[in-house]
């Protein structure tokens, strides 16, 4: 009888112990995996950029987890949840709604590639009080009085206003002369229009430049000859070239080469990463890209040589684009916020992001080298970079501190 009793007791103890172990197991699992989100186009025409962003997030999370996860949370590991923003504002908004509804444990997210997608996504995340980091340029993103959006890039306006002074500065350093005349050739997409607006409105007079060519076209461009002919006859000192569609970029650059304006003979600068895309290299003769510059909010700089090497090695991509660099950096910012918060919840992470002020770690992925957000969510001291095609690779050439190569500028 006694032995029977003890058997039963032993059984009860075993069951309780097993239950406790299970509980502890789930508890520790919960503690270990902290979900962070990536919302980006995984299907449709922008899928490639989305895939690059996913590679970046995976790589960063892998590295963080290997280095011991979030130490202030007992080494909790990060886990990525991906949401497909598709190819339209509507799909992006639906994806965001799905993200907040179906991943209630997310502590932060990054995305969503195009500014219009980010605008729609953040309308949803703001209401769900989920902090979102973004490299989208649009000024609108951080001028709506939102509290849960953090813009790591310089805004479109900052880029547009900063690009000409930076360019003139660079030209003067390279040649000792300041350019006097300028041309603008652009398509009428949102990005190009907002970039050119402040240039036309105030910059030209402020910098004493004369606008000698001003051409706007609707993509896709059928024939670049009339436009390039105008550019050749007016021969500005600098050309601002703003196509967004790869086909248009190709057409314009090929025609410029044909007319003897290529290979840096007419200093040409664009905006954004479209003209720096690896796809362009496979689509056209790489020699014709030589010397073409672009103003971007992020690129691989002198501070990230190791990561760049690791990225190329692991992904087989020719070089990291800004989508890679910023998404990679965003995950590191989330990591830093989690470390500071010591709690895996949205409110704590948001608070940590608001009070963050770092110049090391995550900060080295962002031009300006400091991560501190103002009340609207813009990163203070966000600056721009000028990247130039040199021998088939776009490399950072300005500012000198972050440059990995000297700029090419015709000395004539």
């Amino acid at each position: 009888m006694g032995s029977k009793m003890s058997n039963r007791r032993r059984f009860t103890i075993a069951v309780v112990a097993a239950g406790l172990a299970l509980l502890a197991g789930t508890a520790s699992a919960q503690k270990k995996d902290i979900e962070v989100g990536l919302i980006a186009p995984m299907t449709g025409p922008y899928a490639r950029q989305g895939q690059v962003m996913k590679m970046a997030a995976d790589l960063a999370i892998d590295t963080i987890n290997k280095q011991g996860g979030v130490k202030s949370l007992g080494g909790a590991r990060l886990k990525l949840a991906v949401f497909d923003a598709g190819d339209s504002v509507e799909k992006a908004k639906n994806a965001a709604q799905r993200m907040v509804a179906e991943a209630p444990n997310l502590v932060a997210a990054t995305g969503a590639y195009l500014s219009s997608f980010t605008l729609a996504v953040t309308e949803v995340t703001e209401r769900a009080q989920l902090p979102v980091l973004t490299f989208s340029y649009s000024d609108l993103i951080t001028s709506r009085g939102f509290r849960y959006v953090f813009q790591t890039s310089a805004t479109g306006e900052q880029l547009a206003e900063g690009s000409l002074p930076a360019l003139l500065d660079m030209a003067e350093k390279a040649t000792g002369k300041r350019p006097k005349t300028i041309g603008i050739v652009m398509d009428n997409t949102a990005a190009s229009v907002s970039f050119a607006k402040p240039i036309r409105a105030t910059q030209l007079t402020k910098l004493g430049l004369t606008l000698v060519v001003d051409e706007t076209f609707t993509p896709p461009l059928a024939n670049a000859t009339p436009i390039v002919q105008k550019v050749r006859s007016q021969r500005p000192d600098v050309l601002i070239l703003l196509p967004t569609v790869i086909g248009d970029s190709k057409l314009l650059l090929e025609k410029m080469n044909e007319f003897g304006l290529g290979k840096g003979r007419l200093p040409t600068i664009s905006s954004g990463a479209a003209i720096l895309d690896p796809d362009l290299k496979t689509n056209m003769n790489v020699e014709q890209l030589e010397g073409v510059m672009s103003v971007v909010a992020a690129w691989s700089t002198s501070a990230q040589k190791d990561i760049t090497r690791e990225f190329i090695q692991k992904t087989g991509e020719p070089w990291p684009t800004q989508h890679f660099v910023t998404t990679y950096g965003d995950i590191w910012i989330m990591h830093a916020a989690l470390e500071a918060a010591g709690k895996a919840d949205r409110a704590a992470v948001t608070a940590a992001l608001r009070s963050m002020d770092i110049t090391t770690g995550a900060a080295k992925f962002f031009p300006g080298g400091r991560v501190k957000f103002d009340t609207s969510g813009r990163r203070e001291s966000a600056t721009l970079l000028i990247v130039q095609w040199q021998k088939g690779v776009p490399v950072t050439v300005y500012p000198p501190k972050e440059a990995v190569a000297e700029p090419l500028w015709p000395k004539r």
Partner: protein
Amino acid sequence: MSAVPASHARTVMPILGFGFVYALLTAFVDNSYHLLILTVVPVWAVMGLAWNLFSGYGGLVSFGHAAFFGLGAYFVALAQTVWGLSPWIGIPCAGVIGAVAGLVIGLPTFRLRGHYFALAMLAYPLALLYVFEWLGYQELALPMMREQAAAFMQFEDHRVYVLLALAMMVAVMLLTNVLERARYGVSLTAMKQDEAAAEAAGIDTRAWKLRAIVLSAAIAGVAGGFYAVVLLVVTPPAVFGMLVSLQALIVAMFGGVGTVWGPVLGAVVLVPLSELLHARLGDVFPGIQGVVYGVAIIAVILIAPEGVVWRWRDWRRRRLTIDLPPVGEAALRSTVSRAASIRVPRTTTETVLEVRGLSKAFGGLRALQDVTLSVASGEILGVIGPNGAGKTTFFNALNGFLRPDAGSVIFEGRDVTGWSPHRLCAAGVGRTFQVVRPFRRMSVLENALAGAFVRHPKMEAARSAAHEALDRVGLAHLASTPAGGLSNRELRLLELARALAGGPRILLLDETLAGLAAGDVDDILNVVRSLAADGTTIVIIEHTMPAMVRLVDRFVVLDHGAVLVEGRPDEITTHPAVVDAYLGTKWRAGRARD
């Protein structure tokens, strides 16, 4: 659709019931993503219904409803960002904007027909897309209102959006339900099937098209305005894009064009399906959404080309007709009055229609040359002549299908030369066609109804006029049969009834006896005689001479577009010129033997 008075409850209750069930379902959902889908379904259903009210009933395919949708969306977004106007006011205004856009787009575009119309409509949203990009509205966000959120249609609880969208959808369904039974539905459906016949039946097709596009565009504008509130960010491709117009068209085509439930069914099935596929399988099979969506549409087009609702209706109708006892031919005949089989020649001299020097040429072919004649009130005038003599051209010039090059047509003392067919019909000129042109998808009663509105704008009066006309020709027992299933004789009678329902004072009958058996000819002749006995003037083109001789008071013989001779039947049939030109020598021999 059916104009047969259905009990109010039978059509309205399912709509309200559906709305109630949908609302009830919403109460149990609190996943905000699912609520978003529940909101978007009625929005696309409303777009489908809006498209359906114009293209579905009227038959002019619009690829451009995104124009109205986008204008509505941009109006609401701009009104709130620029003037601080709440969407509660902005959305109704978006309806007005849509209506005005519908009018502005409709006026010039209705000059085009068929594919040309569809292509022209395609251009408007694409043009607007670039206009809004050029204006600098590439991205427009509706400001988030932290205070007074509800006053700006912003709610913490997403169920409110579902209920608003649902209310909008139920309202549009009820509206469609009323309209399809009213003059609107009958006129548009008639136009869709045969625009010329509709004109001849007194339907002002241009005016109805304009009404339809204005109404449809207003609803699309409201849907767009509401969509802006749901999406919160408005971009030109999102609201003016090709997909918006296509989505409206696809949900309607899938569910069933020209029905109340079709677009709703389409939206309820397709919108969640595509979203589900994208959300669940999009990462494994990128683009799976498009593939399955496309396959579903192809399958529906193959299996149910007019949409799921029509397929179901046809299936149900087939089951019903099997149960019905067939109606005997004898029963049909007996209803036709045989009383008026002997005709007393009319002797009045009051002129009702006068044609002076009417000419019409097609290039070098002079189809009508200086035709002058007059028709007395209550008379039966036969127009005969060899093929190509210009008889049908003469009718077309009389009832407005053709504008004569010279000459005039005086009807009851008024110069009506060059009037449009529907206006002439309203004035009292009815006509039938050489090749029958019934509205096949409509019931016999609806066919008659389509012709009745020109005299009786009120539904009740029109309905009783239609019934009267059907009684008159002996088709009353077939009132609810689809016209597509009638015999040739019944179709001829139906055309007659459609013309009669408009209460014409003169009837132009174009080869009404063509292709009929001898017994059938008598039925028609009896009806025509009884009409003339009641004072309707009749002008008839016919080749069947024995029947004509028994029917008409007077003949006009046309040859090479000109009047050869006119006179009483006995004069004409023996006139040497007529015999040479038309009747032939065999006729003479036949007459001689009689």
